[in-house]
């Protein structure tokens, strides 16, 4: 066998009492794509950070082209031609693509922007990137920014590329485009490691898969010789059934009618433009769209957190049968109207919970006003906390642990648990499974399905189109703040939704070019 481009032998890393990586062995050959698969907190990113010089391993050896190397800093990694594309882009917004690409490089001779652009063009052509070197970062879409990050490492001569969850922010079409480029790089002799937890991507793209579980190295398999259920079993450690039982809605009634809403944000940008839809009881309404297309503002409008310029939000109260307009009401006024609205916001620790408070005090957020005295009552919140910890299998030292010390999945269980405990008639959830492992994700899906069976109108903002299609009854596709379409989930097509997501985007770009 040829020598591997990069090989890790017995790598271990501890953080205090936590073993982030233990005895990891893996290798990538030139001209190969390796997927690194594992649930959140399984140590994927830690491992890659050790290759790119951000952390230093406690034990083990790293070989590049068969020679043992020591990588102490990102500079060392760069010297060994290792390039990492992080999940969160590290670009200067006001600079152009080309300026970002050469930023920090110390090249011999005079700085020549023309030469830089020529080389960027050469790299683009070679691998099929589509980029304008003079375009400023702030004018770019997420996918374009990612392209700049990839060209940046290629420009520096990287032969080993590490991509940390590159598809999390992309539409299906953009993902396909990225995969084509990655395959072309592989054929050009690059060694590529891609971190992901989307199984179908692993199967369609990579040559081999290495699996980590709780920091431990489980094994490496050839993609051609494996399947989804085997990989899941390796990842989770036990057999899991990955299906969502979708039932048909029972007597749906219009619970929430959103009519022609316009929202202009602080910067004067119209983030929602004439948005109309109806959420029905006993139904899950999915909202699909590229991140930042107005999903957050839409939910905040309904929750009374966002000022609305035009339109109405009508709530049909099932107890009184009366219709209430929630527009221009504060969250407190909405609750005082008897509207049972629960909301799991995207920013869990920044909006849904208080990170320094313990689980009990976080339970109290919804209920602390109860009682006529000036004092708070912690007995019921404590019982609720104990119930949620028990029923949802929240891993925590105790109910008095600050939530910031819990892992992402457990934080989400606490938040979703609290919101569902309020017995809502409308339940809005934004990206509820982001950062959650497979087991927790399916637990959340099941909880949403149960709420639906109870007649709750569920609004689910998601990013994984496969899940949206499997879980929801109807899917509203939003693009640049406009409703691009509402499709029946049962006969929806992923590509059709993907096209809708970008439809108004391209319209707008065309409009901008005309000016």
């Amino acid at each position: 066998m040829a020598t591997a481009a990069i090989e890790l032998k017995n790598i271990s890393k501890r953080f205090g009492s936590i073993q982030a990586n233990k005895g990891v062995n893996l290798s990538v050959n030139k001209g190969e794509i390796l997927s690194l698969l594992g649930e959140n907190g399984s140590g994927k990113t830690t491992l890659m950070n050790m290759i790119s010089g951000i952390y230093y391993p406690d034990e083990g050896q790293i070989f590049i082209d068969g020679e043992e190397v020591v990588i102490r800093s990102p500079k060392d990694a760069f010297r060994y031609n290792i390039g990492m594309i992080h999940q969160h882009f590290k670009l200067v917004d006001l600079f152009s693509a080309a300026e970002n690409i050469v930023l920090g490089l110390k090249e011999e001779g005079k700085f020549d922007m023309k030469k830089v652009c020529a080389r960027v063009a050469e790299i683009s052509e070679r691998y099929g990137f589509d980029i304008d070197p003079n375009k400023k970062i702030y004018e770019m879409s997420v996918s374009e920014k990612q392209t700049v990050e990839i060209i940046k490492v290629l420009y520096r001569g990287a032969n080993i590329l590490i991509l940390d969850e590159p598809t999390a922010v992309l539409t299906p079409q953009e993902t396909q485009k990225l995969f084509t480029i990655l395959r072309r790089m592989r054929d050009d002799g690059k060694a590529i490691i891609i971190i992901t937890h989307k199984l179908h991507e692993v199967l369609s793209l990579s040559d081999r898969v290495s699996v980590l579980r709780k920091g431990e190295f489980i094994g490496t398999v050839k993609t051609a010789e494996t399947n989804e259920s085997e990989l899941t079993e390796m990842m989770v450690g036990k057999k899991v059934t990955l299906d969502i039982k979708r039932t048909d809605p029972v007597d749906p009634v219009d619970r929430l009618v959103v009519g022609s809403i316009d929202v202009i944000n602080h910067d004067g940008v119209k983030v929602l433009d004439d948005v109309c839809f109806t959420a029905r009881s006993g139904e899950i309404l999915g909202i699909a769209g590229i991140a930042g297309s107005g999903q957050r503002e839409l939910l905040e409008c309904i929750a009374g957190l966002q000022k609305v310029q035009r339109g109405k939000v009508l709530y049909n109260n099932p107890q009184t049968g009366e219709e209430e307009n929630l527009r221009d009401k504060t969250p407190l006024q909405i609750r005082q109207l008897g509207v049972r609205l629960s909301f799991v916001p995207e920013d869990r620790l920044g909006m849904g919970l208080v990170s320094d408070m313990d689980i009990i005090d976080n339970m109290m957020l919804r209920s602390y006003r109860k009682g006529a005295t000036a004092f708070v009552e912690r007995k019921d919140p404590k019982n609720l906390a104990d119930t949620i910890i028990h029923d949802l299998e929240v891993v925590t030292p105790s109910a008095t642990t600050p939530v910031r010390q819990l892992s992402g999945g457990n934080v989400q269980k606490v938040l979703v648990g609290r919101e569902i405990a309020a017995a809502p008639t409308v339940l809005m959830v934004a990206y509820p499974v982001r950062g959650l492992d497979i087991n927790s994700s399916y637990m959340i899906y099941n909880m949403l399905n149960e709420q639906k069976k109870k007649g709750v109108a569920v609004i689910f903002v998601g990013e994984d189109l496969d899940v949206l299609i499997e879980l929801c009854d109807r899917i509203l596709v939003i693009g640049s703040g406009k409703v691009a379409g509402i499709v029946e989930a049962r006969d929806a097509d992923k590509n059709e939704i993907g096209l809708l997501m970008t439809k108004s985007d391209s319209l707008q770009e065309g409009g901008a070019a005309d000016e």
Partner: protein
Amino acid sequence: MSKQKAVKEPFIHITKKRNDMIWWKAWLIRGAAVLLALIVCAFIIVLLTGYNPIEVYKKMIEGSFATKRKVWALLQGIAMLLCISLAVTPAFKMKFWNLGAQGQVLVGALACAACMFYFKSTLPSGLLIVVMLFAAIVAGMVWALIPAFFKAHWNTNESLFTLMMNYIAIQLVSFAVASWVTSGSGVLGLLNADTNCGWLPAVFEQKYFINVATVALLTVIMYVYLKYTKHGYEIAVVGGSENTARYIGINVKSVILRTLAFSGAMCGLAGFLLVSGTHHTVTETLEGGMGFTAIMVSWLAKFNPIVMVLTSFLIVFLQRGSSEIATAFRLNESVADILTGVILFFIIGCEFFIRYEVHFRKKHKEGEE
């Protein structure tokens, strides 16, 4: 190869602790820090002065505990510092950085002194004290509400705002003193020295008894307020995340205004205790820097009113001890300040070891090759 090995790992790694330390371990570290500070100070004492450090420490303790009078002076010092520390705490818990305690105390004291000056012959002492108390509280409240109003409505920077309000308060006091004093000395002497009108009476023959008892009561009230009331809970939510507060339907503006009104009122009360119960006069330096020391007291105690008793004791004890040794050994005041500085450095510095972990490079012993 071996040469490469020798440089391969950085010598020190610093990482944030993933879990909070067990409380007794944390206190063990703090105790060790005090001990270490005393040892370092001992060296400084020997090097700078040549005195026996044990003797110096003995004098330091005597400074606070030698006589009954000194013990009461210590208690009075703690009470005043603690009162102001308690006052700033609710605002700090809300992440409203109120640096204006000095000004709020001063305007409270000024309002109080003004009542003594103008109503000395018209009101009986008991009634006057009630009026003084009321005036001081209102004055402190107003002084804190001004920056709070601007913060709540236009999100102005409260640190700068409150800081500047201090200077206005100082000038107001200068102005009032200058207009009240008719003699050439320019110093406002004891107000109502002949009648003791508006002076808090001595209880159990102790002049400071009322001051100390009031603050002791306030400590308990503040502890309960922050921990067990709905208001206290709202303060914690707003301090933790304003977005969460809004999400849950808390009116952030009104919480800011309400909390600062309370904070300012307590500062005003501290001003009242300083004038009516302690100095019976007003000067620009009446609060003696306590408005800023209080910030440290509050932070060191992590905003826990009960722990603040301990931290304010520590500060006052060190201050009294250092002035005692300065006079007893005829040392320059600076030596005492150096010692106080060293001790505080260790006490504050040890929090680093409670929150962070330091890893040193392990020595590779056995043949690794």
